[in-house]
């Protein structure tokens, strides 16, 4: 962990989390500390419990053992400070782009003028101007996830939980979205937990990478990414630390999936 990260107060603390589904132990004794303003990537093979861990961090499910704290308070249901971006976008097909973005604020009963303002701001931010009245089925995958991101950002969350947000868009759009996320995050510096399958994506985005293994889901290793910001995709790929880190994580993931054991 870098010195600056350590100096910041912890935002999210997960302590000894275990979760069972029937006889299947999905998470085993996961302990994780995420600092204020830190960008953390969760990286691991399919089925290692990344989504389950995210749900636990958001209070959507409760762990069988251990606990999650946000700003020192125990999490038992989805907290106001957090917002989730979902892998399958999670847009309501019966709501337009604006209505989808407005939805969490409508639930929070914000005054309509304030909602309008924030919706406009968030839609501009993700480059969807002109599509306010469109229904999601008229948008491409990349545009849909922009809506998902706008919906989360409009709330002004302190903690952004992103579950493989770019997994179902094409490679080109994916890099475009990574670049935009980088530039947005470098302006606002929310605390981010970002789940991904992709080592490249993790190195590009994260301050720290938490590598998990499957059966049961456990934290295998935590890496610092010693690449300075602001970053671009190109600057990350050119960085001398990029290749060695990539190789190390790759080896980890092979070990974690049991192929070298």
């Amino acid at each position: 962990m870098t010195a600056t990260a350590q100096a910041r107060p912890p935002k999210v603390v997960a302590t000894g989390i275990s979760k069972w589904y029937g006889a299947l132990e999905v998470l085993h004794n996961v302990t994780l500390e995420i600092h204020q303003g830190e960008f953390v990537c969760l990286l691991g093979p399919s089925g290692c419990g990344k989504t389950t861990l995210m749900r636990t961090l958001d209070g959507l499910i409760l762990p069988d053992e251990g606990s999650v704290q946000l700003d020192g308070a125990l999490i038992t249901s989805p907290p106001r400070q957090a917002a989730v971006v979902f892998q399958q976008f999670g847009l309501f097909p019966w709501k337009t782009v604006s209505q989808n973005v407005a939805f969490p604020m409508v639930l929070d009963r914000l005054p309509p003028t304030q909602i309008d303002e924030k919706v406009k701001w968030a839609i501009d931010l993700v480059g969807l101007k002109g599509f306010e009245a469109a229904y999601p089925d008229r948008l491409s995958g990349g545009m849909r996830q922009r809506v998902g991101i706008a919906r989360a950002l409009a709330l002004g969350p302190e903690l952004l939980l992103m579950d493989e947000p770019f997994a179902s868009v094409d490679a080109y759009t994916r890099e475009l979205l990574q670049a935009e996320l980088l530039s947005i995050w470098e302006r606002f510096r929310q605390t981010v937990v970002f789940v991904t399958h992709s080592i490249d994506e993790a190195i590009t985005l994260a301050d720290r990478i938490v590598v998990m293994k499957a059966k049961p889901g456990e934290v295998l290793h935590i890496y610092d990414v010693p690449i300075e910001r602001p970053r671009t995709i190109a600057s990350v790929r050119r960085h001398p630390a990029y290749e060695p880190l990539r190789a190390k994580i790759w080896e980890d993931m092979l070990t974690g999936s049991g192929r070298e054991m």
Partner: protein
Amino acid sequence: MDMQNPLSDTRSALRERVLERRQRAAQKRRNRFLLIRVLSFVVVLGAWQIYGLNTIDLIFSPFTDVIAHLYQLLVYGPLAAAIVYSVSMFLGGLVIGSIVGILLGVAMGRFAGFEAAVGMYVYAIYSTPLVALIPLISLWFGFGIEAQLIIISMFVLFPVTIAVYNGVRNVDASLTEVARSFRANEMAMWRHVIIPSVVPYIVTGVSQGVAMGLVGMFISEIYTALSGMGQVLAYSANSYKTADMLAVLLTVMVLGVFFRAVIEKLRKRLAPWFNTDTGR
């Protein structure tokens, strides 16, 4: 925002052009379909006319004769009053059947205990030919308006119940999770997730209910007290007035198409996200 980059202007211009082109293509497609419909209409009516002219009046009548008889029946005969009566009964049955069907479907879909208690009877009655129940209904409720309304409602009830039940069962669990993660309470869940996802199913169910309700309307008018359009149909059949029969049938057909078109309009209003006409 300072996110503005020089690219974004050209990008949005491009998007507008793409949208515009798409709209034009859709318009073209609609025009082509309209043309096909008109042509098909001309062909079918032409065949009807030719066949009718070459067949004795007892068996079949040319289209022009049917229209003439329709006019006679409407202006000088009993058809106008019969339509008013039948359509009122039909609409009454449609409303009752739809409301009960929606409530039943929602309750069965949302509350497992209720489904366990009631589901089997619903399926049992659904599997019984409703016509077979008419003597029983007449026995209990007589031959009047009450019995007719009950019969029509029963025809409407089942397609609506089944469709709504399926709709409630198919509410996307990932969307309820989204709502939960944004701290929706039960009320908000119904308002923003469950009801909107069931609306298209309701419309589909009611649309099927329209078709079944028209069947129920005729059956109730023929099998209970002879009345309405059923009566006009039966009289013209008994006196071998084939053109009159065809005129009544044409009227029902037009009514059926009209009501389904109304429902389709309603779908577009209630569920504009649910596109059926533009090919996905």
